[in-house]
């Protein structure tokens, strides 16, 4: 990593420099005042930097060296599925025949794109066991909201206006309750039991006439499979509610079990997790939604359909909830996911899940003696540890996360799920080698020892990063959210 403080690009700016090469104006120039009257025109120019092309390259290269990605090193960030992002995916998405299509071109001129979308819909339907998939949602949270709006439309069509509540486990991802509220529901919490699974008695108690849906992640966010999923589905369906599957992290179930077969009515996937499309430092992703037959009439238009040897958009969905996204979703991301599915095929996808689960269990068993493991059963693609033991020694989970930075690792997810004290959530993924897992476990074990023998080493970490711990309190109290040129 680069040691030096990197100037802002604005601080590199010097009047008169350019980094572009626009086409020459090949028509006779007209008087701007005649085209757009001066009262509509900008008086003060925006302060964009004036830099040369090499300065741009050096600047962003320097920034990239101050960043850690999967390509830089192990990234066991739980709930995020930081697996390898294949290079071929990037190449395919950049083919001109995909990258430079306009969404309003005639259908006849984008047949290849439509075919790809159609085949991706079909593949995801098969993988999830659902009847119809829409590729429109832009990300996981967007998929959740879309799915919940479908459930709302379904209940309203049945005259069930009293179904205002969405049940969400205490271990659920934050977007679940947030999406429920954005879709106009109230979110109610169902407790987990001591085995980390949904408390069925509590679920029975709160499920009823006002239940619109249960939102569930399975394996849940503790990395545990909800063994009683079939009973849960019965409870919710008997109460007249629908089952929503948060499939953001489906890395444990490919070819092994399908949400559709578990009894779920709606599912969203994060193609930017399970299906290897890159996270891009926070996006863009893609969050397709699959539904069972009785929810198909409410899907957002258009769907992609096959019509003899042609593919076309189907806009005829009279009871649709309406548009959730302009155009047809994040097509460029969907190209990458399709490339991945074609790389792996059915056997490969199944191996993905087998190895993701094997890797996670291996790490869990190696680390268990040194940390508190709140749940003892086999985990699925990820697992949680608690830093309770270390906390008693004055070392917080945050400190251990920062100490891992010194070893060149991205730390696990910390303090999530919120129902585990001092939580560390580890997701190795299937693309990491045993050697990497071992080295990481060794580092974790060393940190556990340091916590006992020399806690200050951990408390004062990181020691080898380009910057030390940052003052987040001041950042929030006196926010500086943009650069301003000094007068």
């Amino acid at each position, binding site marked *: 990593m680069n040691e030096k403080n990197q100037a802002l690009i604005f601080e590199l700016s010097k009047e008169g420099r350019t980094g572009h090469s626009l086409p020459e104006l090949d028509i006779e120039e007209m008087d701007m005042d005649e085209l757009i009257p001066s009262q509509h025109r900008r008086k003060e120019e925006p302060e964009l930097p004036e830099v040369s092309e090499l300065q741009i390259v050096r600047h962003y290269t320097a920034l990239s060296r101050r960043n850690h990605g999967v390509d830089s090193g192990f990234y066991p960030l739980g709930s995020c599925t930081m*697996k390898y992002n294949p290079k071929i995916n990037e190449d395919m998405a950049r083919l001109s025949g995909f990258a430079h299509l306009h969404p309003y071109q005639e259908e006849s001129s984008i047949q290849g794109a439509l075919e790809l979308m159609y085949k991706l819909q079909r593949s995801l339907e098969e993988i999830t066991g659902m009847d119809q998939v829409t590729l429109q949602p832009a990300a996981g949270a967007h998929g959740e909201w879309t799915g919940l709006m479908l459930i709302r439309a379904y209940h309203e069509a049945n005259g069930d206006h009293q179904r205002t509540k969405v049940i969400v486990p205490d271990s659920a991802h934050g977007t679940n309750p947030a999406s429920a509220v954005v879709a106009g529901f109230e979110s109610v919490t169902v407790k987990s039991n001591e085995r980390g699974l949904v408390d069925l008695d509590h679920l029975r108690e709160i499920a009823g006439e006002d239940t619109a849906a249960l939102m569930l992640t399975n394996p849940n966010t503790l990395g545990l499979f909800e063994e009683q999923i079939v009973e849960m589905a019965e409870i919710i369906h008997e109460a007249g509610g629908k089952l929503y599957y948060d499939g953001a992290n489906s890395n444990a179930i490919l070819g092994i079990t399908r949400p559709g077969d578990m009894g779920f009515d709606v599912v969203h996937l994060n193609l930017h997790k399970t299906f290897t499309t890159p996270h891009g430092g926070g996006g863009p992703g893609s969050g397709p939604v699959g539904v069972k037959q009785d929810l198909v009439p409410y899907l957002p238009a258009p769907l992609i359909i096959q019509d003899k040897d042609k593919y076309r958009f189907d806009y005829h969905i009279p009871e649709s909830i309406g548009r959730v996204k302009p155009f047809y979703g994040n097509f460029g991301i969907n190209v990458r996911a399709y490339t991945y599915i074609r790389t792996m095929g059915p056997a490969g996808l199944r191996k993905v899940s087998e190895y993701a689960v094997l890797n996670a269990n291996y790490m869990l068993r190696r680390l268990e003696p040194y940390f508190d493991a709140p749940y003892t059963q086999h985990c699925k693609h990820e697992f949680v540890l608690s830093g309770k033991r270390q906390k008693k020694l004055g070392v917080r989970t945050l400190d251990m996360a920062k100490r891992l930075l010194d070893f060149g690792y991205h730390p696990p997810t910390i303090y999530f799920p919120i129902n585990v004290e001092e939580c560390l959530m580890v997701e190795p993924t299937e693309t990491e080698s045993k050697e990497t897992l071992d080295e990481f476990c060794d580092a974790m074990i060393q940190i556990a020892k340091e916590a006992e023998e020399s806690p200050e080493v951990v408390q004062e970490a990181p020691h080898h990063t380009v910057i030390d711990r940052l003052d987040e309190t001041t950042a929030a109290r006196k926010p500086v959210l943009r650069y301003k040129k000094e007068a």
Partner: protein
Amino acid sequence: MDKFRYLPMTEKDQHEMLETIGVSHLEELFEDIPNEIRFQGDLNIEKALDETSLVKEMTRLAEKNRHLKEYPSFLGAGVYEHYIPSVVNHMLLRSEFYTAYTPYQPEISQGELQGIFEFQTMICELTGMEIANSSMYDGPTALAEAAMMSAGQTKKKTILVSKTVHPEARQVLKTSAKGQNLTVIEIDEKDGVTDLDHLKSEYNEDTASVILQYPNFFGQIEDLEAAEKIAHQGKSLFIVSSNPVSLGVLQPPGEYGADVVVGDAQPFGIPTQLGGPHCGYFAVTKKLMRKVPGRLVGQTTDDHGQRGFVLTLQAREQHIRRDKATSNICSNQALNALGASIAMSALGKNGLREMAEQNVQKAHYARKQLEKNGVKVVTEKPFFNEFVVRLPKPVKEVNEKLMAEGIIGGFDLSRFYENKENDMLIAVTELRTKEEIDQFASVLGGVQ
């Protein structure tokens, strides 16, 4: 095929690992999944392809499409083909950027955080606003979020949106509004711009916000000064959706007193890619800072006083506030925000103005040429890089004729407007040459 280049597991590894776990078969790890829901057999999806065959298959699909690098296009309507400096793609391919997650650990994410801080600054500069977030999914969802925010801020329930706002943005808005039980009222168009008398008559104490697009869907420049006065009679917010390239020549919405400016940064370095992923932006006044959806990057210092960047004001967000969050957004379009920043840096202050002016010049030249060729031009008032013509035939038919001549024609307005049966919306960017425009005008002029 049973070997997979992304899977490093060997038989030896597997054996050793199972031993450590204390089970004899991998199967045992899945015993908690009840038999009745176990998937039997192979997924019925297409079989795996080796890398060479895969490239061949993907190339076959790509080549079935006609793309904008092959055919000159006059399509815009919210998505624009512009000059993309080569550096943009090269920098985005730095894998430390694209293979990273959201920058939760600032010590090893300073590059991403600083890049986004710079993006926020550039959006503020363009729009004339004080605060910009780190990106939204796209322009239309950003617009819908702005409307939801206005209802939350003002505790009012009606959104007034002009029919000159992108039709798909209005559709997304209506879906969102249904979720929040808000009412959306559409304000009529008159001569290609918002009918301000209609806006005035619909405005009342229940108005949460007034939404205009600038330049609007037909390319025309709305009278923001007059609209702002109407919007701010009461406590409602004035929301403006803007193509950021146009702000290289147009007075920014911030100068007209907009409370929120949203739009899509796609025209800066982001390929059209059939409509996504693009890059929504979201800018507000200081007063609304704590109501903003999504992630914000702030500047701070470390123990040694060295400048650094962190995600900040997170108490607004779903991972902290859950059902009380300002929005459910989590992932956004960070990489595209970075791409847009790189394109804006390459253009710089002068390049942006030059590019925006070229759009104005070329679009007006095209308008003149079309008129010369006998095409009826509908747009009379000031416009940026798009305008409307009325043809003697349905646009779909005309576009087929254009395609036969190797040109991708303009947008068929009858798709969204009943009263614009044969109207074509034409976009002309700096990429269209004089020759292409002349040919286009001559083909359109020949349509009887």
